[in-house]
């Protein structure tokens, strides 16, 4: 790699050991992926996880004197106080690691958003902006929906980028690597946000390769929640960091533009039958449930509104959890949705993830309902059996205590 004089100084420790440590990792990554140079970033998002390795790494950089040049937003942690009051007290080891992680990220200069949807609020990039985003729902969203440029960063490499303010230039940062290779003709009727959950899960089941897919046949622009669901499932069921939707996403005004000079390597059709088969495999049989959980990724205000309108004056028969950002929770309060959901016996918890152990321990091994395949998949390891249904149907199930169909 060709480094500027300043970058060489950073690597050699002239600006401190913290910057040198981050730079050393980034230069080694750049050499591995044959980047020619480093380029500046304007934004970063780190998938904080409050697990051992996460804390160890941020602590190590802090001790070396690192501080973020570009303050990154961060993924959810755990709202310990809320859970203690309303569910159970997290074991001490869990409290210690969460508190220490939060403090370490604050000290290193992160912006403590504790939200996995930075692309909807607080950290929204523009077209062509070079950024370093980790988090599975975020990378496809920023690349595909906005036309910003981020590689599929690991949480550690995104933190290094935040510290140096630079990334090695390879992969999705380069024009020629952003063109499609797989043509996906969607004949299935795609209308609701839930249809995008299924479509996003289905595509990597039909094609395992990492090439960029180009979706055609989608009639109208997805809602922000639709795009969010789609990317989250594409990048959980598979490892899709970018896609095009012809006539909808900014780098795909036409099929020709989406493919550029690339030939179509494979053609795939996704029909109503394919989506029905995915639904059949994934969504589980009807039956009794012990609780309901939504917010993987964190729900938007529109989704919170849908829940409030669906439940109305009725009451939930089971524990009911909505996970969202602190801003959306505040907005839900202002709009009266929080009141409706609380009166029905439900919770809106901010800053928290469905997947940070041990925060949902009382539910391990139980039956539940959610609208998110990603939520269901990550909880398999804890023996929680999630039935997956569209949001309104799942809310009805929580009112009955049972998924009827």
């Amino acid at each position: 790699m060709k480094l500027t004089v300043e970058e060489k100084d950073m690597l050699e420790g002239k600006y401190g050991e913290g910057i040198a440590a981050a730079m050393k990792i980034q230069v080694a990554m750049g050499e591995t992926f044959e980047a020619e140079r480093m380029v500046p970033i304007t934004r970063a998002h780190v998938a904080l996880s409050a697990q051992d390795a996460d804390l160890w790494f941020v602590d190590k950089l802090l001790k070396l004197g690192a501080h973020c040049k570009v303050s990154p937003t961060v993924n959810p942690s755990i709202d310990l106080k809320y859970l203690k009051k309303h569910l159970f007290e997290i074991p001490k080891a869990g409290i210690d690691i969460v508190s220490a992680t939060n403090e370490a990220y604050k000290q290193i200069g992160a912006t403590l958003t504790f939200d996995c949807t930075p692309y909807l609020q607080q950290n929204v990039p523009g077209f062509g902006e070079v950024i370093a985003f980790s988090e599975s729902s975020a990378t496809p969203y920023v690349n595909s929906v906005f036309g910003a440029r981020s590689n599929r960063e690991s949480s550690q490499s995104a933190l290094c980028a935040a510290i140096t303010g630079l990334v090695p230039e390879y992969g999705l940062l380069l024009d020629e690597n952003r063109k499609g290779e797989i043509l996906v003709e969607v004949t299935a009727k795609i209308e609701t946000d839930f249809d995008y959950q299924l479509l996003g899960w289905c595509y990597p089941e039909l094609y395992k390769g990492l090439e960029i897919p180009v979706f055609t046949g989608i009639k109208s622009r997805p809602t922000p929640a639709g795009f969010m669901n789609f990317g989250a499932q594409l990048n959980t069921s598979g490892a899709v960091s970018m896609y095009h939707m012809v006539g909808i996403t900014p780098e795909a005004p036409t099929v020709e533009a989406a493919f550029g000079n690339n030939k179509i390597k494979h053609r795939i059709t996704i029909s109503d039958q394919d989506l029905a088969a995915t639904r059949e495999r994934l969504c589980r049989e009807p039956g009794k449930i012990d609780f309901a959980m939504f917010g993987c990724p964190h729900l938007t205000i529109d989704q919170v509104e849908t829940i409030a309108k669906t439940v109305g004056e009725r009451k939930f028969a089971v524990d009911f959890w909505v996970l969202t950002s602190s801003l959306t929770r505040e907005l839900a309060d202002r709009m009266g949705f929080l009141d409706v959901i609380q009166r029905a016996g439900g919770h809106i918890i901010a800053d928290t993830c469905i997947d940070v152990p041990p925060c949902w321990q009382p539910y391990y091994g139980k039956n539940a309902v959610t609208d998110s395949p990603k939520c269901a998949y990550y909880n398999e390891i804890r023996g929680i059996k999630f039935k997956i249904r569209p949001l309104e149907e799942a809310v009805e199930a929580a009112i009955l205590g049972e998924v009827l169909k």
Partner: protein
Amino acid sequence: MGTKFSCKRISEGYAEAEVIISKDAVCYYLVEPETGLVVERNHDLEGRNIAGKILMMPSGKGSSVVQADGLFKLGRNQKSPLGMIIEHADPVLVSSALIFEVPMVHKVDPEFYKLIKDGDRIILNATEGWIEIL
């Protein structure tokens, strides 16, 4: 002395150990942290131990959170592999190897793949970019 094969450094370092070959991609979250035993169901290495060996595999798999946490816990218990030889590099595995300072290489001379057998002792010199079968 055996023949030396060229390779390209990802993460620097030197290791001399027995090689263990996996046909499948490896996720360190599904390796028992106390022992180094692979516990992933239906995995090529299911029931085998990677601790103290040089692991040869096509690639890594899994998110940065799980991959890094898995390798970190193995390292803390001194059950980590001593080195890695991979075919397809991805940012998650590469950053994990760099951060936990496990020597790792890719782009190995194709001749090496014809000769290497599971259980052979090798020297992996990632810093200088060569592998020797002993």
